[in-house]
């Protein structure tokens, strides 16, 4: 799979320890939910950030996605808590 840019916001960013990275996703990681599971295994910060995967939101190439959204063709995948703007 091609290299993707991963971005984290708010307390996900704080728990993971950085706001941005690039990653080459292993084969078998084809949806948002699968990507979250894979990221949880990357270390303590990731495990804490994704401890409650149900409340984490994701956007693929700047559009909101759902757990079953396919990653195919994604260049930029962002993870963040529920939004509190407005």
């Amino acid at each position: 799979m091609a290299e993707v840019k991963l971005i984290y916001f708010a307390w996900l960013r704080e728990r993971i320890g950085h706001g941005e990275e690039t990653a080459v996703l292993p084969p078998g990681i084809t949806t948002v939910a699968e990507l979250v599971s894979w990221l949880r295994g990357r270390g303590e910060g990731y495990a804490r950030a994704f401890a409650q995967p149900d409340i984490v939101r994701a956007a693929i190439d700047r559009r909101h996605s759902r757990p079953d959204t396919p990653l195919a063709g994604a260049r930029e995948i962002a993870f963040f808590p529920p939004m509190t703007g407005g």
Partner: protein
Amino acid sequence: MTAAHPSKIVRVQEEPFDSAALAAELSAGRTDIGAMVTFTGLCRDENGALAVLELEHYPGMAEEEIGRLATEAVSRWSLIGVAVVHRFGPIRPGEMIVAVVTASVHRQAAFEAASFLMDYLKTSAPFWKKEHRADGGDAWVEARATDEKAMDRWRASGQVLPHK
């Protein structure tokens, strides 16, 4: 002079803004507007505990997502114009965080579209608030269940949403 196309203004910026100038910009030179609604959301501090509110945002997606919401509002309510400005960065109590302006022929469309935009901005625009308290502590603001519920009423009335 009557402009043929609806006006659409979307801005995501760190600087304070003037909501009245925004409304004036939207209505300049037109005589076909019958109703305008300007909503402003302010940084509130009831008891002096808040020093500053910090707004983190997703550059690029914030503008794009608000643009999509504005386009949806224009077509759904046949608006004459819509403007949304959302700030990021540090915001002090009493300052404006967000402004939404809608312009239409009759008042119901302007009211409903402004309310729709605010409901969506709260739950769908990629911004996150962190409160820095006067006592030195800080905490991320949690999403309100009532905001999610407010959005659901638009969903129930036939709106197809990009997520959830």
